[in-house]
């Protein structure tokens, strides 16, 4: 094993990456910073109200009614001569504190219920879920109307009730988080390690719940502020409590006389709710990590094909073969990373012959799948692709637009994916998914297309084509799904089949059958096949030629027999040596195996 190990026993990053705390990440987002600053200012203003104004917010001075802005009343006075600035400041106290009450109640009820339901499941969970579904269907405003009209006019009481009504959303969030964490293997591992439930909750579950809770809290806070304003608008609310909602109410009465009065509380409310919403959004972003994608998901990746330099004189990178179907010269695929690009396929050239199977072998990160996708034009939009040429049966594929590529895709070049279940659209029947491209490419009637698809399904070894045709993907097994996908791939009689690890997700017995199927179809239709795999067993089973890749680069290409018999590259040799097939089995443990009726060698 002269090849340096890829599992780098010492290739750990040399300096520990600094763990960026959520807060730190948040502080790098200008929107979040702005939102935080605004909220902090509002909170500070409400706390410092007595310092910032000498006016009593409740005390009305008749002669100041609708006083304009001036030195005595920085923002003027309202319809009953109360200082608007003072009201705004003291109102922030009520509004913010009452909203906090809503948040506190919602969490005081929601968190324990969510932890209880999510962690222990069972009866408690059933009852809690039932109760929460009930609560969710209660129209909050109506209940608040009744409460405020009949029970108490206090904003705090109303907000406490709102908190209760809204608590199911907290419960659901916490429960969902707990349930998903609980399914995580590391929680299982913690249990096996003998951690108590309390410690598991504290150490493994609460931290996960923390961040979404903050988001939820911000949202509930915003909702509470809005609802307060709405209730005040309806004329409910305690007269002696200064709040933004009460200010709005007064402003509405004077809307035609002093519209500015509406501006201040509306501004305060909108600022608060918007800041909270933006903060929640920023938090979510910070949690979700930086989204790689900023560009469109459907634009074609940037591709460019350099013109063949002197068509004849240039020495082809790959030796020419008789029935050449596809020739790829010097393919390069890059992805943008922080401040640069990362090359995942670097100068790969290959040739596929009609009626032959080319194996593309490598470990994870070798770029084999990226190579396959780039040939189909299926790279994600942020990827960049370059090649000296991609010639398919006389046509140049490089640089084709989406529409032009669709003349080849599905019709002449087909694709078999790796994971059968996730590659069928769960919302449509198997039949309709297969019929759609057939009709589009072959321009035949729905009836003819259905007949063709049914016969294809039968061809790929499905015993009840009619039933499978009408089934939804979740109603069929993984092996069956892979047969369906193969049927879909060959439905328009393609010349080239690109199969990306078509058997990796399957059980070994199913894998053998699927390989048999691909082999027979390929044989029957004289297709060229690119088979991407990491399994040398599969290569040995089906391939005619093999290209070994590593870290985006081509390592060697050879006929299959030659490769196994006489690998040229060290890397290939290392890989072949790693296969366990011919490793010596361990012998039975000496000693205690008495009295067993095993068949011993």
């Amino acid at each position: 094993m002269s090849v340096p190990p890829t599992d780098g026993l010492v290739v750990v990053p040399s300096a520990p990456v600094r763990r960026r705390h959520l807060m730190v990440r948040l502080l790098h987002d200008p929107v979040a910073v702005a939102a935080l600053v605004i909220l902090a200012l509002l909170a500070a203003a409400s706390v410092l109200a007595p310092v910032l104004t000498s006016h009593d917010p409740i005390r009305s001075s008749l002669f100041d009614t609708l006083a304009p802005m001036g030195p005595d009343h920085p923002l003027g006075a309202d319809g009953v001569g109360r200082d608007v600035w003072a009201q705004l400041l003291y109102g922030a106290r009520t509004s913010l504190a009452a909203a906090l009450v809503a948040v506190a109640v919602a969490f005081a009820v929601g968190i324990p219920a969510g932890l209880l339901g999510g962690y222990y499941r069972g009866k408690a969970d059933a009852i809690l879920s039932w109760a929460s579904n009930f609560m969710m269907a209660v129209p909050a405003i109506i209940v608040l109307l009744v409460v405020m009209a009949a029970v108490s006019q206090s904003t705090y009481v109303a907000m406490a009730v709102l908190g209760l009504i809204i608590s199911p959303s907290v419960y659901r969030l916490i429960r969902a988080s707990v349930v998903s964490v609980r399914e995580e293997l590391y929680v299982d591992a913690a249990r096996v390690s003998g951690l108590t439930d309390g410690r598991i909750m504290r150490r493994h579950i609460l931290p996960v719940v923390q961040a979404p809770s903050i988001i939820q809290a911000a949202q509930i806070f915003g909702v509470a502020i809005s609802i307060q304003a709405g209730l005040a608008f309806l004329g409910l609310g305690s007269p002696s409590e200064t709040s933004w909602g009460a200010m709005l109410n007064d402003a509405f009465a004077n809307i035609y006389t002093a519209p500015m009065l509406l501006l201040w509380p509306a501004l305060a409310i909108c600022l608060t709710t918007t800041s909270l919403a933006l903060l929640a959004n920023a938090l979510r972003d910070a949690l979700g990590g930086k989204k790689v994608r900023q560009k469109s998901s459907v634009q074609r990746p940037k591709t460019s094909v350099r013109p063949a330099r002197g068509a004849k004189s240039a020495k082809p990178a790959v030796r020419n073969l008789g029935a050449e179907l596809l020739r790829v010269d010097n393919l390069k695929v890059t992805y943008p990373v922080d401040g640069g690009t990362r090359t995942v396929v670097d100068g790969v050239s290959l040739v596929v012959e009609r009626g032959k199977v080319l194996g593309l072998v490598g470990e994870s990160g070798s770029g084999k799948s990226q190579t396959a996708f780039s040939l189909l034009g299926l790279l994600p939009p942020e990827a960049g692709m370059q090649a000296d040429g991609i010639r398919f049966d006389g046509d140049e594929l490089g640089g084709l637009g989406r529409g032009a590529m669709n003349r080849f895709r599905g019709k002449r070049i087909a694709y078999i994916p790796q994971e059968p279940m996730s590659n069928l659209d769960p919302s449509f029947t198997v039949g309709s998914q297969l019929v759609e491209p057939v009709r589009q490419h072959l321009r035949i009637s729905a009836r003819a297309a259905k007949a063709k698809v049914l016969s294809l399904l039968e061809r790929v070894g499905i015993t009840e084509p009619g039933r499978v045709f009408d089934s939804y993907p979740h109603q069929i097994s993984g092996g069956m799904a892979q047969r369906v996908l193969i049927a879909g791939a060959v439905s328009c009689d393609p010349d080239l089949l690109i199969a990306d690890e078509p058997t990796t997700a399957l059980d070994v017995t199913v894998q053998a059958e699927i390989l048999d199927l691909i082999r027979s179809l390929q044989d029957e239709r004289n297709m060229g096949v690119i088979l991407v795999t990491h399994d040398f067993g599969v290569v040995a089973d089906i391939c005619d030629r093999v290209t070994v890749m590593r870290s985006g680069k081509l390592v060697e290409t050879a006929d299959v027999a030659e490769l196994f018999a006489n690998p040229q590259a060290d890397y290939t040799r290392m890989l072949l040596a790693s296969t366990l097939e011919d490793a010596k089995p361990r012998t039975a443990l000496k000693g205690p195996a008495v009295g067993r009726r095993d068949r011993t060698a």
Partner: protein
Amino acid sequence: MIKKLAVAGTAVLALTLSACGGGDTGGTPGEGATGGTLTLSISQDMKSWDLAEAGLGHSEQYYQPVFDPLLRLDQQGEVKENLATSWTYDPALTTLTLKLRTDVKFSDGSALDSTAVKTSLLHAKAGTGESAAKLKSIDDVQAPDPSTAVVKLTAPDPGLLRNFANVPGMIASSTALTAASGPVGSGPYKLDASASTAGTEYVFVGNPDYWNKKDFPFDTIVMKTLDDPTAETNALLAGQVDGASITPDRIPALEGGGLDITKFYSGIVEGLYIWDRAGKITPALADVRVRQALNYAFDTKAIVKVAKKGLGETTTQHFAPDSEAFSADLDKKYGYDPAKAKALLAEAGYAGGFDVVMPDISTLFPEAQAAMVEQLGAVGVRVQLDKIPFSQFMPSLLQGKYALSYFKTGSTDPWNVIQLLVKEKATWNPLGYKDDHALDLVNRISLATGEEQDKLYKELNEYMVDQAWDAPWNFVQDVYASSKRVQVTTQPYSMLPPIYNFKPAS
């Protein structure tokens, strides 16, 4: 897909916008003296078509198209004939003989005769509505012949005639007293139930058989219930309604929007009402000097100017300028004089002021509360506000929970004022205050007529002002906004202009 959606959306939008202008239900300007539709907005819904449950004040307009009253007030507030062509009292003032028109039929075809009047009045009297309360003095109604109705009273009721010119005097068909399937009256219009939506919009179409069609020029009357002032203002500005009673703060916007503004008095007096003149709750109030001090404490001119936007006439009395009891000199009795107020309080032994508890009304009348707390505080009366749900405001006053509070009530009719405020069992005498001198005057008023009665009214008025019965601030000025399409005339004794005072603008 998107294109299709966009096209569909545009189509809907075009459809709705193209109908623009078609939604105008108001009478077309320039049309002749008759025809068209009059659309009025009323801020509160009607309670019931049953006259026994009918309300007054802002509800009156609802009943005017369908029901015709026995009498009618002219624009000066004088009682004029309507269904009754003449009316005479006996000397004891307890029997009122009415001569009825003989050509009137209800819209169900039955004749409006003395039996119908008897049935309708006795039914209405038994009810609990505001209107019914005005009929409580009726003992019985007799129908000696079809065109003569004789109303027997338990005691003289000087307000009865004016009341008969309003909802209390309206007559419903005997076949539909409770109006279970809609109102049946003999009025100028009939309710078009199919076009109406209870609680939202009532549509009235002309009654072809009505005897006095010239007073009701519109073909159709629509009454919309719009209880939100802003929505009402928007409707006025958008030309959706032709008239509505509005709050003073909307005047500039509506005038700017091209609407006509009419200001008038309906006899409502607002101010600090002293319920506890006997000092049961707050002993200080039993002393007339304390009550007078309260009158001196208020800068009523400033209150009217600022809190009422100048809409109102300061006063010290409960009787409206249009009424027989009014006396202009009385308004000079108390002026804004905090020093004097303090002196009077000191004289009464309250140099340090005193504490009172009042219901918190800042949601309903914030300006009034602001003024009250501020100016009472200035003379040493410390107001504690009792937070109660606003639905509890009236009930708690009626229960006699508070010694004094902000309030407004009243009537242009002096007898109605007495009924409301002065009598021992008067509605707004919740603590049952009994002043023998005042009650004696009331009794004498009920037995007198003409100038003698007027003199007694004035005497009562003066006595009440001297006694500082309450601490009134001002007569409330009401504002009515109307579109240029109509001409409106307001008149005394009505909170909203009666529908016969609306004419199409020429």
